[in-house]
């Protein structure tokens, strides 16, 4: 099992990189061959994920529905002296995102046909990017995770900076610096956690469960080591965060080590999400990036932030997550409202879609953060489960609708070469099929029932009430704004008697290739909207388990700490208010 | 003591050698003709050779046992060979110089100045 997992997961991750290597051999004066080859590689990766998802053959890795734990995990020593492992595996949270990545990448490779400069370099970078993205979702070793995170960054920089629009250098550098800032914070946090981790604190069973070692004997051997055993193993770190006191030492300004680690990681991840106020790289990057890169950016890269928060921030630093839940949710709601308002004011079609991403990803933050499993709720994890599942669903749904929206913008941009919202109109009459699909996809973004956006938004919104009434009302108010900016956009672009901008005669109906990209997106948007369990069945067990673990932690650990704090607070207040206490 | 009254010994040879050496040096320093300079060099070398030969001769030493022994004579032979080689090279340089400048005046050959 482990052997097949090793082969298949490595294949999925590194197939694009191998493809990129092979591309070097193809002469660069045959752009069509290069594109076809790259498309073939992305299709192969997608098929490989499909085999893992649906194939039941014994000699392949197989993702079992309904299992909460890590599946198909394997671990090989990589850099022994720092306990770094080539450790990968998947559960419901990562696997759905891997599927999404493979799917969106495949479609955006198809959308790359209009790239005509330096095709070979483009395809090589594109495939490297895919390796980085898949690696991020599958890596379970923090160091490996970080390596993939950075691997993804560089191709993106070039893809925006070379093949982008007029202000591409600015956008690319902005994207790069923002993300790099996040990575640096993340690196600090990784090191903080690494140097304070100690495998000896875990029980033998926990060590085995975290895939640190294979058997109990080896685990006992680790436990009897004389020196602290640091680790990058994300599962082991999560266990430490939830079951030991390792990360609770005070670090700085009276805050614990995990508080700082959480904050640093959170900043790193919300830059990627992106959440207000560190979101401004997104509109620029989107506006300048070529269409397929926008699709990947919106469809996959933004999900890494949410994924990181769910996979890393919350399980490893639960105490800090509990204390800072207000911050996470507030950022979410502010992003939702802010993004929606900003979208309302945009004149540039692509910028508007970019801001809608900010707004939609706010739901993700909000859903993750609604820690309603507190004593006042008798540690009932169900609403939080709903919120976090909704957030995960929203990530997938946004990964379907947002690339679709960007692609729709790209299709019209390729024909008329402008994106000014005031200079469109009447497209419905000129190319009805394109407009029909665009309506479907934009309505998915609007959160119309029966389309994928609805489920995530509603599940998140409904879960908020038991956490905070104010945030709940604010998040509900977003639906009005969303309807406002999307309908107004559709009206300005697709409705009306005639097209108002330049190159009107270039508007041709959607062609077969474009249809082949747009139609699957719309079809999935409908499928997930009508039958969301197509996703939930995969992810819910894992998400639920994480929430239950954290709820259990709240009950078993956090509550005592809160009580201590309260007692301490009361004591201090008592001394201040009542001088007699001291005398007694 | 008067050296002229003494029996011929090492010091006499050394005096001749020194004279030849000084002559050679003066010749090198004053001659503008390159061949003259070469002759001066030969004088310097042979002056030194005389010293070697004299100091290695067992007949000249009072004790009948020379200081340097055969070593001195070997060195003398070595110097002669060296002088021959050196002369060959130097003459070649001179010829070449003459070909280029139509003169053998060493003062005109200042192209190596810093």
């Amino acid at each position, binding site marked *: 099992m482990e052997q097949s997992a090793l082969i298949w997961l490595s294949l999925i991750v590194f197939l694009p990189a191998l493809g990129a290597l092979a591309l070097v051999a193809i002469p660069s004066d045959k752009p069509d061959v290069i594109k076809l080859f790259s498309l073939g590689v992305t299709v192969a990766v997608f098929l490989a994920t499909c085999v893992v998802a649906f194939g039941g053959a014994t000699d392949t890795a197989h993702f079992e529905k309904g299992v909460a734990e890590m599946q198909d995990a394997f671990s090989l020593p990589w850099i022994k002296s720092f306990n770094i492992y080539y450790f990968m595996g998947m559960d419901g949270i990562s696997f759905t995102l891997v599927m999404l990545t493979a799917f969106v990448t495949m479609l955006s490779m198809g959308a790359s046909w209009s790239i005509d400069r330096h095709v070979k370099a483009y395809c090589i970078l594109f495939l490297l990017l895919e390796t980085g993205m898949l690696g991020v979702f599958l890596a379970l070793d923090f160091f490996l995770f970080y390596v993939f995170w950075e691997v993804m960054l560089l191709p993106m920089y070039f893809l925006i900076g070379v093949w982008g629009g007029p202000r591409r250098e600015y956008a690319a550098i*902005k994207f790069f*610096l923002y993300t790099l800032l996040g990575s640096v914070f993340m690196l600090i946090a990784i090191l903080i956690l690494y140097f304070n981790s100690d495998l000896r604190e875990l029980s033998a069973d926990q060590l085995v469960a975290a895939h640190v070692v294979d058997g109990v004997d080896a685990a006992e051997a680790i436990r009897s080591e004389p020196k602290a055993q640091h680790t990058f193993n994300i599962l082991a770190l999560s266990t430490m965060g939830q079951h030991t006191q390792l990360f609770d030492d005070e670090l700085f300004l009276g805050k614990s080590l995990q508080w700082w680690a959480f904050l640093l990681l959170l900043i790193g991840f919300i830059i990627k999400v992106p959440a207000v106020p560190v979101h*401004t790289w997104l*509109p620029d990057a989107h506006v300048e990036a070529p269409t397929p890169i926008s699709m990947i950016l919106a469809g996959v890269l933004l999900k890494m932030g949410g994924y990181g928060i769910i996979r890393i921030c919350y399980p490893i630093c639960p105490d800090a997550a509990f204390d800072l839940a207000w911050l996470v949710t507030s950022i979410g709601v502010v992003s939702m409202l*802010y993004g929606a308002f*900003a*979208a309302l*004011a945009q004149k540039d079609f692509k910028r508007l879609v970019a801001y809608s991403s900010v707004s939609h990803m706010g739901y993700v933050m909000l859903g993750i953060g609604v820690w309603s499993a507190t*004593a*006042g*709720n*008798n540690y009932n*994890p*169900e*609403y939080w*489960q*709903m919120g976090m*599942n909704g957030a995960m*669903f929203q990530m997938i749904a946004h990964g379907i609708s947002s690339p679709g929206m960007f692609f729709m913008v790209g299709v019209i941009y390729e024909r008329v070469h402008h994106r000014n919202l005031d200079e469109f109109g009447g497209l419905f*009459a000129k190319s009805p099929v394109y407009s*029909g699909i665009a309506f479907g996809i934009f*309505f998915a973004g609007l959160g119309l*029932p*029966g389309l994928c956006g*609805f*489920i995530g938004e*509603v*599940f998140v*919104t*409904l879960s908020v009430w*038991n956490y905070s009434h104010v945030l709940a009302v604010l998040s*509900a108010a977003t*639906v*009005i704004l969303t309807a*406002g900016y999307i*309908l107004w956009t559709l*009206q300005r672009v*697709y*409705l009306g*008697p*005639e097209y108002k901008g330049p190159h009107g005669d270039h508007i041709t109906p959607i062609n077969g290739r474009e249809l082949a990209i747009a139609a699957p997106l719309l079809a999935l948007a409908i499928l997930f909207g009508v*039958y*969301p*369990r197509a996703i939930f069945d995969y992810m819910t067990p894992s998400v*639920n388990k994480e929430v239950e673990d954290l709820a259990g932690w709240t*009950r*078993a650990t956090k*509550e*005592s700490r809160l*009580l201590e704090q309260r007692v301490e607070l009361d004591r201090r207040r008592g001394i201040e208010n009542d001088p007699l206490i001291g005398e007694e | 003591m008067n050296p002229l009254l003494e029996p011929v010994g090492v010091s006499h040879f050394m005096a001749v050698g020194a004279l030849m050496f000084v002559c050679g*040096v003066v010749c*090198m*320093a004053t001659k503008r003709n390159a061949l003259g*300079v070469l002759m001066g060099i030969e004088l310097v070398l042979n002056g030194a050779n005389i010293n070697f030969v004299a100091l290695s001769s067992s007949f000249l030493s009072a004790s009948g046992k020379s200081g340097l022994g055969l070593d001195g004579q070997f060195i003398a032979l070595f110097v002669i060979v060296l002088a021959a080689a050196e002369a060959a090279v130097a003459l070649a340089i001179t010829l070449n110089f003459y070909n280029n400048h139509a003169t053998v005046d*060493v*003062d005109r*050959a*200042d192209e*190596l100045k*810093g």
Partner: protein
Amino acid sequence: MDTKTLASLLPILLGIAWLLPLASFTLIVLFGPRMGKHGVGASYLATLAIVSGFACSVVALGLWMWVHPLSSAHAAAPEESIDAARQHEAVVDHGADGHASGHHELKTPIYYTGDLYTLGQFGKLKVTISFYIDALTVGMFAMVTLIASCIHFYAIGYMHDELHDVTDHEVVLSDGHHLHRPGRFHRFFQYLSLFCFSMLGLVYAGNIAMVFVFWELVGICSYFLIGFYIERKSASNAANKAFIVNRVGDFGMIIGLMALWGGIGTFAFGDMEEPDGTTSRGIFSQVRDAENGYKLTIPDGMVRATVPEVVEEVAVDHRNNPDPLAAESEIASRLSTYREQHYGYWLLVIAGVGIFCGCVGKSAQFPLHVWLPDAMEGPTPVSALVHSATMVAAGVYLTGRFYPVFTPEARLVIAYCGAITLFLAATIAITATDIKRVLAYSTVSQLGYMMLALGVGGWVAGLFHLITHAFFKSLLFLCSGSVIHACHTNEMPKMGGLLKKMPWTGYTMLVGCLAIIGAGLPPVFGFWPFGFGLSGFYSKDSIIAQAYSFWTENPTHGMILFAAAAGGASITAFYMFRLWFMTFIGPPRDHHIYDHAHESPRIMYLPLVILAFFAVVIGWTWPGVWGVTDLLEQARWPAEASAGVLLPNLHYPDEHESHVPAVHLVAGLTAFSTALGGFLLATVFYGVRWLNAAEARQQFAPIYTFLVNKWYFDELYDFLWVRPAHVVAGVVSWFDKQVIDGFINNLARWTRGLADIDDLIDRYFVDGLVNLTAAWTWSFGNSLRGLQTGKLRQYVMLIVIGTVALTIIINFASAG
């Protein structure tokens, strides 16, 4: 046939009726343009789907009445047969004094409910697609499919123009020509099918979340249909307005949903059997607990949600208890004291008012009524189906469906909302000249009536009016469509005298007008106690009767609400006959239009006749066999007379009390006299024209302007909401660009500045030192150059001198 068979048959029958339009929609989307010439086949397909749906619904209705025979509301107790799945019965002494029988049994209405599939489940929280079928559902299905069928037929004729290329005279292109475009016949029927699917889904829905799903879907259908003429700016504006205003209502609805979800943790209406054999309790039975005599009960979850400190205390005590149920049971045991103190009551109020907010949006109630008149931009069949008979009635339907959950306070809000709306809309309708707008305001006003009825406790009255109104209002709209089809204008001042040209249309519309004003013979005591008339007569009478009955218990509120209802009846009569007279009676005002006017084709006026027939008879009752009220009575949740908690003086009379002759006589006479008054006034102004309408307009100029401008609501909202939203959006965008990005860019600039300084230091200080050393070395070497003359003889001299000097130094040194 027993109830079990019925329980398995009904969901299938109604499910087929529900899904057939979806199939039709899908087929038309995919193959619409290829269906026959210009897509004419699409209309046949859509019509076939909805007619089959109607057949299914009628069969379902027949089965229902066979298994659950109607019993007159005033006769003995209802049938004992209830859904085999659950039987909640409670016989409570009611003690309504004036009631005919004095006592009647309270029991849970008959309903069948079940899950179709689950959207998502988290522990006990479950969001599903489910059905809830009771008498109201069955009745609504029959009504919606019947009207939709008629309108489909009508639309085949009305949308005939779209079968070939169309020149849209309302759209002027930039080159000055009118827009010329290909027809979109199939697309119209595609939207109609989607709408039918959504509307039926809304009625079929077994939980409030599913209602919300289809709520949004009918909204989007309405958006498409209003904006059917996508080239017209006014149409797309109206479509946007409709959807966004509805979203404002949905905002409230979501809050209501959240309060319910957070408190109760279920959306299901009825009790449902789980796969594991247990019964999960729905919202209704939690709020109206049979064991509690159907009194308003605050559900456990809501009480709990309002006393977190108690839950916390218990939870903290039990946090190390291995038995997770211990804490739960202790919490449950503590709740009853808080329930008695009405903890959680406000959550129930929020849930009720929140859900009602959604209804306000959908049913175009004050203050969200502004979208409906603009929605008349859509083709007339749409106005008839979507914006009068069904979709806008969905708000009333949901209010009725959700009735058990509304607290007395929420009901009062509903009543006032309805009263304000009905008066407001009626006054605006007086001055409107666009024939469809008059009808639109009339719709708003009639919906206000329904809300008012529900708000004052007249559950059956409100829903009864919903059904009768659906028939006569769709009839009126179709008639107006027929007129517009003939005249190519909406403006009534350009019509007149059309009765001769269009007798079918004219007379059916007269029937509609009579129905809407509630024409009939008033009750004559001792002879016929409940009067006799057209369908609207019964429903409007029962509303006014209920308002009167409410007045007897609540002097202040009751008086206002009753006055609104009675006054509204008078205005309704006036503007409806103003419309009819202006259109069909008197001399033609525009001869060009008059000369070209013609009766519509048969496919258009036959539906009118059918609808006119129903507009007359749908309100009639044949005791024990048929009667809309009796059917509805089977679906009524016992909502006993209860006093408010926040407003303790608020009392709700039982609806049966309004059937008492003493109440009914007053109500009937009031309704009759006010309607007659309105009718006579209209006759005086527009029928026989004894008075000149223009003069009256002059006389009341300020009021006229105020009404013509629709009370300036559009301007007010534009000022209050739309502009501020855009301003805020602008500010946010500016903030983004200037502040955040400005900060980032400045940061970059500062960093670059810092780098420049660093560069200077590097260049002039660090490099300076290095270069200085090099320079010194260089000049030193340079100074030594002079020695190198290249002169051989000098070198020899130097060697000699050097050797001599060395010798001397060594000698001296060794000597020294």
